[in-house]
Each structure stands twice: as structure tokens, then as C-alpha cells.
């Protein structure tokens, strides 16, 4: 790990724990702007609440559109976090330590954002709790055959588990920060650290349970986005009713998630001068993963079209013809450009390690993956079974856009607070990558 040259345990503590103090005025400005956008989004939502969903551009047959697109988008974003922290942990991938805390935070906040949209999109949100399994109205429970109920379980489980994973992982670091701080922050951290002392007893059970968290989170990651994909695959709409959806969505999720991780880490690295911690080596690894998943996604697109043709099913054929060349075909081509073509640049090592290039590419990927969900949802609904209902058009109004923007603000609000007050990088795990503090080299010891 030549990258880590010149780092000592002490320096790590100083660098990481001090980030919260190094944010400065800029942080306040950004946070203020963020709150403004959020407020606008909330106003749009209230407007929709009082007037009715009609203030959006929704129209039959596009009964689902931007809101569900956002839901899937954010759930997707959430995935890379757990992937990095759990799966790569089990695979002992060395480059995860430096970035997993950021991506875990991203996961938790993304799920918190995603969770809003199924509610925002409800016709009668004031009865949202009827989706929760308890004998609510006239002793009726929920319909466990409905993929939406699966969502309720999958997303809430995913939020709980990833939040636990996130918090547990932070305990030793918060303890470290506690030991550096004074005054109010010290009190706060002492509370959060739960009195962690790094004793053998602490470490023994911590190490064990952490593995199990990872072991739980890994299948969970794969299941959650599969379940989300089944919202569509279980319905019989042409363009939705397909067995490829689960793997295809999971790959897409990791694809978009990794992209956003890069998008987030690049500015942080710059702002807090963490070049020593996050190096070309890290970016290279992430870029490779983006390229890999990106190609899986591309492959899925091709398979979808192939199957539509090969099945000879007129509904499917029509749906996919419309998808590319129909009235809203442009959305498909935006998606294809951002998800299939642009990421191919990452075959070149230079592009993988040239931060600005990589940064821009990830921005495209984020856009592309949003459009992927938009295309899958709106286009498929528009090309439904009954030709009489084909309308082909769907134009979002300012309400949808406002609420979407608000959701980004909501996400970044949490993220900014996280950067300010919590260990943005894992102090203890960074120490794990440094050479052990031996007085003698192993050879002398053996002798």
C-alpha cells in the first residue's frame, strides 16, 4: 500500500477526526442553499397534498412515473454502500476501508430518501399506514401477495440493517473522536460511543458480530433490489413482465451506486486534502466496478430487445419498438448514451485514474440510471395491452420536478451533517491497512 506512505496511527486520528472542524464557512453556505431547495420541494408536496395528484403530469396509462422512478433510483443508489461495506468486506478487498464509511452513509441516507416516494405517490397518503402489517381497518391485514407489501418489508428491513451496520461500524471511531474532543462534542460522542474502550472484550464480540452483519447484509442487498424489480416484473405489462429484471436491477443499482460514491468522494477528497487516503488505486478499483456493472446493464438492455423479438409476442415487440422509436424514444437514447456508451471510456486506465474525467463520467452515469428507471416505467406503461389507451405522452409538471429536487436536497442535508459531525472515514479500519506496530520484524521474532 505504497499509497499510505508517511501515515501514522496518530496522523490518521488527526486528519480524520478533524474534518468536522475543517468545514468552515463554505459548509454553512452550501447547507443553507440545500435547505432552500428542500423547502421548495416540501411546498410542492403540500400543494399536491391539498389539490390532489392531478397537479402532476400523471395520466392514464402512465399511472406511475417520476415518483416511482425516484424511488427506484434512490434505492439503487443505496446499494453500492452495502456492497462495499459488506460484500467487499467478506471478500477482504483492501481498497474498501478508505471509502466504505462514505458509501455506508450514502446508503442510509439514500434509503431514507427512497422511502419517501412510495408515500408521496400515494393517492391518499393519509392512509399510508394501511400498508403496514397490522389488523388496521375492520381487522383486515395486508395482502402479502402484492409486491408493494414485499417492498414495505424489503425497504424497511434494508433501512434497519444498513443503519445498524453503519452505526456499529462507527462506534470505535466515535470513541476515538471522543478522546480528542472537549466540551459539548465530547459529551455527544461519549454518548454515541456507548462507552467503547477498545478492550479485548469489546473487540472480541465486535469482530465476530461485524462478520455476521456483513453476512446478513450481503444477501439482503441482492434481495432488496430484486424485490423492487418485481414491482414491475410481477405485473404483466409488456416491457415489465420479464425474468431478467432481478439481476438486471441489482447490477444497475451497483452501477449507479458506485457512480454516486465517486461523485461524492471526489469533492470531499479535494476539500479535506485526503489525497493520501484515497488514491488512484481506489478510483481505479471503483472505475473498474462501474465499467463491469455498466456492461452487465448494457447486456441486459440487449437481451430485453432480443427476447422481445425472439418471443414473437406482439405485445413485447410493440413495447420495445416504442421504447426506442416511440413518441418518448428520446428518453431511451439518453439512457443508452449515458449507461452504455460513455462508460466504455473507462477501458482506458488513464480515464479511470484521471479524476476530473472519472468525475464527469460518473455524473453521466447518474443521469443515465435515472432515465433507465424512467424509461422502464413510463415507456412500458404507455405501450400497454390496450391500443385504445395508447397516448404515448407524459409531461411532468413543476410539482414532480420540485419534489425530485427536494429529494436530492433531503439527501444532501443528511450527508452534509454527516461530514460535519461524524467520522467520514473509518479511523480504525484505516489503521488496519497500515503495517502492524512491531518493534522487530517477523523474522527476528521467529529467530
Amino acid at each position, binding site marked *: 500500500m505504497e499509497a499510505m506512505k508517511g501515515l501514522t496511527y496518530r496522523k490518521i486520528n488527526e486528519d480524520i477526526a478533524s474534518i468536522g472542524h475543517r468545514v468552515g464557512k463554505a459548509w454553512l453556505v452550501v447547507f443553507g442553499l440545500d435547505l432552500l431547495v428542500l423547502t421548495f420541494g416540501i411546498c410542492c408536496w403540500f400543494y399536491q397534498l391539498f389539490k*390532489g*395528484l392531478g397537479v402532476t403530469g400523471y395520466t392514464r*396509462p402512465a399511472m*406511475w412515473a417520476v415518483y416511482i422512478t425516484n424511488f427506484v433510483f434512490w434505492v439503487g443508489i443505496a446499494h453500492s454502500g452495502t456492497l462495499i461495506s459488506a460484500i467487499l468486506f467478506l471478500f477482504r478487498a483492501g481498497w474498501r476501508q478508505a471509502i466504505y464509511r462514505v458509501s455506508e452513509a450514502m446508503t442510509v441516507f439514500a434509503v431514507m430518501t427512497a422511502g419517501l416516494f412510495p408515500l408521496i405517490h400515494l*393517492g*391518499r397518503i393519509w392512509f399510508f399506514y394501511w400498508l403496514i402489517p397490522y389488523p388496521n381497518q375492520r381487522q383486515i391485514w395486508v395482502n402479502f401477495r402484492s409486491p408493494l407489501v414485499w417492498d414495505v418489508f424489503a425497504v424497511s428491513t434494508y433501512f434497519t440493517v444498513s443503519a445498524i451496520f453503519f452505526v456499529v461500524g462507527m462506534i470505535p471511531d466515535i470513541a476515538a473522536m471522543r478522546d480528542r474532543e472537549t466540551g459539548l462534542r465530547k459529551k455527544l460522542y461519549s454518548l454515541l460511543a456507548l462507552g467503547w474502550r477498545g478492550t479485548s472484550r469489546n473487540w472480541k464480540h465486535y469482530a465476530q458480530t461485524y462478520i455476521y452483519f456483513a453476512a446478513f447484509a450481503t444477501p439482503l442487498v441482492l434481495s432488496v433490489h430484486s424485490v423492487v424489480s418485481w414491482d414491475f416484473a410481477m*405485473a404483466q405489462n409488456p416491457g415489465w413482465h420479464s425474468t431478467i429484471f432481478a439481476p438486471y436491477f441489482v447490477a444497475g443499482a451497483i452501477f449507479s451506486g458506485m457512480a454516486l460514491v465517486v461523485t461524492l468522494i471526489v469533492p470531499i477528497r479535494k476539500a479535506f486534502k485526503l489525497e493520501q487516503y484515497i488514491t488512484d488505486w481506489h478510483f481505479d478499483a471503483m472505475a473498474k466496478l462501474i465499467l463491469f456493472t455498466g456492461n452487465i446493464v448494457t447486456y441486459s438492455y440487449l437481451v430485453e430487445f432480443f427476447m422481445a423479438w425472439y418471443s414473437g409476442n406482439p405485445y413485447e415487440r410493440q413495447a420495445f419498438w416504442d421504447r426506442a422509436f416511440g413518441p418518448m424514444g428520446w428518453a431511451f437514447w439518453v439512457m443508452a448514451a449515458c449507461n452504455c456508451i460513455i462508460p466504455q471510456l473507462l477501458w482506458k486506465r488513464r480515464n479511470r485514474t484521471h479524476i476530473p474525467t472519472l468525475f464527469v463520467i460518473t455524473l453521466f452515469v447518474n443521469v443515465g440510471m435515472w432515465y433507465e428507471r424512467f424509461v422502464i416505467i413510463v415507456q412500458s406503461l404507455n405501450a400497454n395491452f390496450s391500443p385504445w389507451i395508447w397516448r404515448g405522452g407524459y409531461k411532468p409538471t413543476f410539482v414532480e420536478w420540485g419534489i425530485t429536487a427536494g429529494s436530492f436536497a433531503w439527501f444532501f442535508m443528511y450527508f452534509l451533517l454527516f461530514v460535519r459531525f461524524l467520522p467520514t472515514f473509518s479511523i480504525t479500519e484505516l489503521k488496519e491497512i497500515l503495517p502492524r506496530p512491531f518493534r522487530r520484524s517477523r523474522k527476528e521474532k521467529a529467530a
Partner: protein
Amino acid sequence: MNEPHHGISRRDFLKLVGATAGAATVAGCLPPKADRLIAYVNPPNDDIVGLSTWYASTCDECPAGCGIHVRTREGRALKVEGNPAHPVNKGTLCARGQASVQGLYNPDRVPGPKWKRGGRWLDVKWDDALWMLQEKLVAASATAGAIQFWTGGETGTWNALLDDWCAAHGAERVAYEPFDYAPVKEAAKRAFGTSTVPIVDPSKAKYLLSLGADFLDTWGMPLAQARGYDAFHSARGGVMGKHVQVEPRLSLTGHNADEWIAIRPGTEGLLALGLAQALGGGVSGYDLARVAQDCDIAPDTLARLVKELQENRPALVLGPSTAGSGTNATETWAAVFLLNRALGSVGTALSPSPGFDPGNTASFRAARQAVNRLGSGNVKLLFVHGTNPGYWLGSATGFSQAAGKADFKVSFSPYYDETSSLCDLILPDHHALESWGDAEPVKGVRGLRQPAMRPVFQTRQTADVLIGLARAEGGAKAAKFPDATFREHLIRRWGGNADVFNNQLTQGGVYPADLPTGGAGGGGGVPALVAPALAGKGDFTLYAYPHPYHADGAGANKPWLLEIPDPVTKVAWDHWCEISPDAAKKLGVDYGDVLAIDTGSAKVELPVAINPLMRNDVIAVPTGYGHTEYGRYAQGRGVNLFDFLPAAEDASSGGRAFLATKVEVTKTGKPWTLIHTGGPGRQADRAVARAIPLTLAGAPAGAPEPKGEPTPAGSDMAHGPAAGPEGTPPFLTMPTFRDRTSQLNGLHEKQLAPDAYQPPTGYNQYNRAHHRWGMAIDLSSCIGCSSCVSACYAENNIAWVGKTNMVRGREMAWLRIERYYEDVEGGIETRFVPMMCQQCGNAPCETVCPVYATYHNPEGLNVQVYNRCVGTRYCSNNCPYKVRAFNWFDYDCWVSPLNWQLNPDLTTRSKGVMEKCTFCLQRIREGKDIARDQNRDVRDGDITPACAQGCPTQAILFGDLADANSRVAKTAKDARSYHVFADLNTLPSITYLKKVSRRIKEETPVPAEAEVEA
């Protein structure tokens, strides 16, 4: 302050101002209809709270005079349905009839007597208004011809009363309506010596040649004709007459035809004579070659036509109705009658006597003369009732200016229409559903009209007002009117025995079982036919056709009729013009672009709807739009064609010539969002609307059950899955089969002891079910008139959403008529599919609902629980038929008093809730309750959903699929039966019967299905 022409003295004025102020204050302190608040302390005798009371009456929406039953609840008329005994409609009802309740509760009705001062309408008391009118009347009736009384075309007692009253007051009566039938009547007089419109019954013919008669839309007695047409054309039992429609622009009627001949406008008579000559009708000088030339028809087509006419006698021929009647209309019809004689349909399929009497309407010519007299200034007092010359003749004949010449103008219109806006006094009449009266559309068919409820507003029936005025004058005039009220007058006219009369009331009148028919003598001879004179110049002929709902514009202020898409173009809310695709290409316009139409004297702009079924040199525009008054929904919508068309008339009869002008059509480049419901209009291999060649139709029903579907013994789902003979129809599984194979199967073992208490939950709720409601829809019968759609709106409190929402496809209709064009040999075939919730056995919508808001009820219905719905809209996504409607807003469409029409048997739906067709659950409930009260099981036919009830051709059949002997169960086994999207295995409860088509050789294969079966 004192306009010279305004004949009101200072004294009157002061008095009236006082009175008005008084009226205003009184009105101010009394809550409107305060008496209703305590109505049910002691309710009316025949009114039981919670139960419907039905009143037999007669529809007043068009001259056909259909018998109706008005359903009332707690003293409010809710819905109008056909009177099954009445010979005109035999229980059916059209969209206009269904919408009459929206005329009754129209928010733009005149709430009480109004007097115009300084351009504003002031409230006046009835007594003051009448007192004032009395004075004018006495003064004016002194000199003959000083009073002009404009009325609509009327029949029966009211008509006679008007005549008497006018005679008594030396008033000139002008009965005018734009669709006057003058040419037909005139031609009939010449040919048969009658003065009525011959009654048309296609069922008595083997062949139907319609030269532009839209006998299923507006012309004549559409419901009677539709019934006859269904018998003639629906191919029950494999027999199907051929219907050829000869029209420049294919009407709704034409869309049902087996062949379309796009004739050059105005040459129909020529064709008739040509055919007559070819068939030896004693005509000469019209050899087919020339006719083919002039009519722009291929000669071999004509030859074939002649051949077919020869082979299929009797053949019925009809002449052009409104749209096609030009300056030679009478001769054209004379030629048509001549041809009918030659084809032997007179007296059977076409019976001139007694014939249909659309009312004693004066011709356009007579009306113009009356207007001139009015303009001369001799007319001091002008009465207007039941007609709207301000709209129909406003600038066409200068009625509006002429009316200004009269000193005092009184309107009896219940609405603020174009005419009443010209008047000084409005004494609003009752709506037909609040009035007494009778109608005699056909001699011997006498329908009675009675009030179904107390007046909604402070209105008085004009008949009573007139009687009152006459009696108040005393002397000879009073002597003419011995009865104090119109009701008493009516009883006298009907025999004078109140008991007998009441008995007749319950029947809705006195009439034979069927329409009287009969031939007539007379000869007429060969008419001297001349080509129609067309004003203006340009490449296009303006083809002004009556809108099937709005017709002459009377229906234009009824939201239902605006929201329900036009059956042919599927345009809603807006006014439009139609041109052919080629013409559109030539003009470089697309759907919705605005075209400028120029007659040379006038110019208007209308958005274009492209219609593949019309000639390239014709531009078609529906009538009934372009109101400047008449209410919030009607005003400012498009163009008033009655003003726009040049004032031309048929030379012989003086009837208005609607085929009057050529026009210059140019592109304006202005965009317009013209609502178009219904996608591309093609099926894209989906086989939604299927057809079967006539040669295959009518194959014997009932066949061996397809393998793999045993009928379990002891199942109360008695009958097996329907299937025809091997091969046809394709494999068809009824939902009842699904019931047997799902949990519903074998539930009976689990059944508790009959005497045990059975909780409302558990399997037993399913095995206690006796019924499995289902529907069979015969596409061969459906004519696409959308009467069922309006009935559905009326029955189920369905909100109308207005243009802005409809542009986004947010219409709430539970039932829609899908109109698909299918390419067949020799052009395009139209197939109409009534599409509503299919109540699937495997309902895709049910599974995906997270909260059980929609589920499968024990009687096989796919029920939607509004209170439970949270609005995820997943059900709609997963519904292949897309028949679920979502409440995007709380629609505030029931503007008071329209909300009085809401059906108390079901709720209105709030925002955020999904809704859909329920098979009229409330009617099923009612039917079962009645059966239970009578301690019997529900009988087949007890229960009829609104759509099936009104259907003019009875294309919709509802019943219990679990009862093997029910008509629906039997029909579902018909050889033509199929399910829409059967390949998706949704097992719909609605079985469609393929349209029988002359124009296809074999069935179009269904790719998806083929794949599934393979």
C-alpha cells in the same frame, strides 16, 4: 331611462321596481325550497324513503316521443329509462334521452320570472309579470297579426292548445325547428299523398340502401329504426341483410354498413333515378354510365348494386337526411320513394301511412317570411316557446334584428338561450320532466307526459300561463278555455274520466304494441331532378351534419354529452371539422391544427379531426355548437353553423338546404389541443374487436367440452366452460371454471351446518354464493351510439372532468366505446367494442393491491372498496383492459342543482381513489332484495345494469353464469363468443360475440393467442 321602443309606462315601471324589491327581500329571507327541509315528516303517498318510485312519461328531447320511465328517489328524478311497452323505443333510450335529467337540473336554468331593465335581468313576482303581460296582451290582441308566437314543432294536446290560443288572440303562430323534414314530407305528399315522414323498419327488408340517411344517429325515430336495423343486420341465426351506405362522409350509421360508396354530395337523387331506370322503375334518361359519371361512382360498383338490388327484394332505400339535403332535396326524396316502389318495400319496410309526425314545423322558407313580417314592425308582441330562433335564424334570416322591432318580447324558455336574451320578459316553463303533456309522434301512438317531481325552480308550465292569461281576460276568450289548469284540459282531451286517465298515466299513454304500418296510394311520377345549387367557391363542399348528441344544439349545455366522445371521431368538448387524410396531407395539416373555412361571405376557424372515411373534396362539420348564450358549458364552443351556412332552401318544400355551399379551406398554422380519446384507432394485432365471416357465422352452439375441463359433479357452478364446435370458436374458458379450480372448488366440504352461525369471514362467504354474474356483448349488434356510456354516467355518479383533464386522458368513464378501424377488402371496416371492467376470474388488479382494496367477491365480481383504497394505482397498471379510472382531484362537477341527480344508492368518490365498473352492484343488490322479499330466487332478467337497460340494439346481455339456463350462459356458448386478451388467462366474465362481417373471407389470426395455445 325610457327607451322609446320599450313599451313600458312610468307607472308600470315604478310599480314593478317596488314589486321587484319586495320579491328580492322575500327571496332573501326564505331559504330556497325551504319546504323540502321538512318534506318527509309526512311524505307524499307514492314515495317511500329508500325505495325508487317510477313515473311513466314521454321523452321530450327529440320529436320521436319515446316512452320513458323516470326513476325518482325522495322526490327527485334521478334517471330516465325506456318504457318497455312503448312501440317507439321498447324500453331502450338514447344518449340524449339519458341526459335529459341534466337539462332538468341544469345550473343555467332560469330560476324564475325575469324582467330586463337596462340590460340586466331583474327578478319579478309571477303575479306582477303576468299582470304586466296581461296589459300588453289585451292591447296587442286588439289588432290581428300584432302578436307572433314562435314555438317548436309540437304534437298532441299542447299543439292544439297553442293553435286555439293563437286563434283566440289573433296571433300568428310560427312553429320552427331547423331539422324540419320539409323535403321528406313534401316528397311523401307527392308520392303517397301523406304529409308525414314514412316509418322505416329495416327488419322487413332484405337489403338496405341508405343514400345518406343517418337513421341511427338523429334522423326520424332512431331508436325504433335501430331496433329494426338490429333485427335486419345482427346476423342472429346466420341471416344478415346487406346494408350499403352511400355518403360523402360516413356517419355513425354508415360505420355499421357492409359497404360504403363515397358519392359526390348532392347527387343521391340522380343515383336513385339511375337505379330505378336500371331496375325498370319507369324512368328514362338516367342511364348508369352518366349516373356513374355524375355521382363519381365506379360503373362496375353501380352494376353490382343493381344486381344486388334485383336479387334482394324487398330492398329499402332511404334518402339523404339533414346533412345531404340540398336545394333539390324534395326531388331527391321523390326519386328515393320511386325507387322503393320499384323494389317493393313500400308498405312494409317503408310505411308512409300513418307515418312519423315530427311536429307541425314550418319550413325554413315560412320562417323567413315570418321573420320579415316581424321585421316590418307590425308585430307588437312576440312570444317564444320551445324554439330558439335567435340561435337557428339569428343572422341567417336576421331574426335578431327583426325581433328588435317588436315592442315587447316574451320568452318562455327554461334556459337563458340566444332568443330569451333578446326578450324583455322570461316566464320560464317547466322542464319536460316537471310538466303535464302528451305527444303523438305517430298517429295512434299517444304518449302521456306527467311531472316526475316538483319543480326544481320557481317555474310555471307555459300551458297553464296561457290558459290563465286567457281566462283572466274573461268573455269569449275565457269561454274557450273552460279548464282552470292544463292538467284538467289534458284529462278532458283524453276522455274526461280522471280514473281512466290515471290508469293511462301509469301506462305512459295509449299505444299499440308495435308501430302502425301501412302503404298508401298515389303515384307522384318521376321528379324533375336538378343538380343542387352550391353557393361559394372552393375545392371543398361543406357537409354540415347533425351531431348525434347535440343535434340542433339543444343538448349543448349538458356536460355528459360534451364529455362523452363523439362516436365517430372520438373528439370531446371541442367543436371540430373533419377532412380526409389525403386532404390533410394536401393542406399539410395534422390532427388538431386549425383550419380556416371560407364560404366567401363568412369565414370561421376550427381545429381539424382527420377522418379516414370521407371524400377528399368534402369538409364535414357537426351542428349544435357555437352558442353565444345558453349556459356555461355550451357558450364559446366553436361555430354556430346555422349562422355560418348561407340561407339556402330546398326549392320545392322550402326546407332549409344544409348542403348549401362550397368552401375555401386554408391552413392557419395555429395549434389547438383537440381532445382525441382512443390512441391510433387500430388494433395492432391485439384482436380486441374480432370479426367472423358471414359464411362461418351462426354455426350451431353447444359442443363437446374441451379436454382438461371436467365438470365436477355436485358443483353448483352448474355449467361447463363454453366452447363451440372444434376449431370455432377458439378455446374459451369461463371464469366459473376458474372458480371450480381455485379455492372456490370443494368449498362445500368445508361448509358449516346450515343452521350454524356463519361469520361474515372465512371460506364460507364464498361457498354461500349462488350467483356468478356475467355479461355477453354482441359486437354484431353494437352500433357505437354510446347510449350505454351516458346511462353509466347517469347511474353511477361518475364525475365529468372537463377538457383540461381529458386532454391528459383522465376521463372517469367506467364504460367506453372503443372504435377500431380494420383494413378489409374494399376499404376500412369499423368495429365498436363496449369496453368496461371484465370482472376477471383471475383479476390481475386484485393480486397487486397491497391493502385488499380490490378483491374477488363471492359472486365472482371484482369489487373495488373505495374506503379501503390508498391510491397506489398498481391495479390500473396491471389491468390489461385499462378500464380503471383514478380520481386525480375532488372533481367539483356537480354544480348545484346538478348534484340533485346523484344516485343515493352509491357514493361519490373522493380524490386519490380508484374506481371502475361494478356491473351496477346497487342494481344487483336491489334485484336480490326484491327477490328475497318475494321469497324466491333471482330470476334471469330481474337484474339489468344501466348500460344493458338502455342499449338501443340490446347488444349487452347481463345475467348469472352459474345458471346454465340463463340467457347469458347460453349466449356465452355461442359459436361467435370470445374473450378479449384470452391469452393472458384473465378469464373475463364478459364474453364478446364476434362481429359478423361480410367484408372478410376468414378470421384474422390472433398471434399472441396462437402462441399460447401452441
